[in-house]
């Protein structure tokens, strides 16, 4: 699946997007965040804030959502538009 990172999540991780292939036992958003956090300090640093919001295929989801059918999963800070 394609992972997208925005704003300070993008800056901390150091890239705007990448292809990720989590193992089959990574089923929820929270599990995916835990898996990503183990990939390196930059991921750990972004997700340790506990503030990262998630969207699957361009719709907001909670951290207990299932990722099974996701084509695109985005990670970003709380929104500050308007």
């Amino acid at each position, binding site marked *: 699946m394609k992972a997208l990172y925005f704003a300070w999540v993008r800056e901390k991780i150091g890239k705007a997007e990448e292809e990720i292939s989590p193992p089959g036992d990574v089923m929820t958003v929270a599990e995916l965040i835990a898996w990503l956090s183990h990939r390196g300090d930059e991921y750990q640093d972004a997700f340790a804030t506990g503030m990262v919001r998630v969207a699957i295929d361009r719709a907001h989801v909670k951290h207990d959502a299932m990722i099974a059918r996701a084509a695109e999963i985005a990670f970003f800070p*709380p929104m500050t538009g308007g």
Partner: protein
Amino acid sequence: MTLASGRCHVSVRVQAEPFEASTEARNLTQGRTDLGAIVTFTGLCRDEGGTLEALEIEHYPGMAEAEILSVAEEAQVRWPLEGITIVHRFGRILPGEPIVLVVTASAHRTEAFEAASFLMDYLKTRAPFWKRQHLADHSDGGWVAAKHQDDAAAEKWKG
């Protein structure tokens, strides 16, 4: 992105260019004789007492438009609206320039006022935009932190 659901004409745009609020309002009312109220809200970039040089707004293309449309659909369920236009900018924005526009049209004023307020409250917490500050002393002001007041403002429309 434009769609007409029932009688309500909805137009949503996410763009880098500035917009003209009066033009957008005129486009929504042109040729209509059934409207009794139009509310136009424009959010501007403040200079924060002279300390801000510019805002840089990042967005999630595709989701930004989709999320604004879904908020507009929710407004139509709550109020009998005849028209909604929402424009949100991204990129570099200077103090004094417009950032966001919400126009609501209805037969009576209460719906138009309430829907415009609801749309802004929901946009701020749901539409994927992030503001970064560039300061007048050329230092990086960092990303703007989300405000608890904005969450509380959106929360008050529930229930």
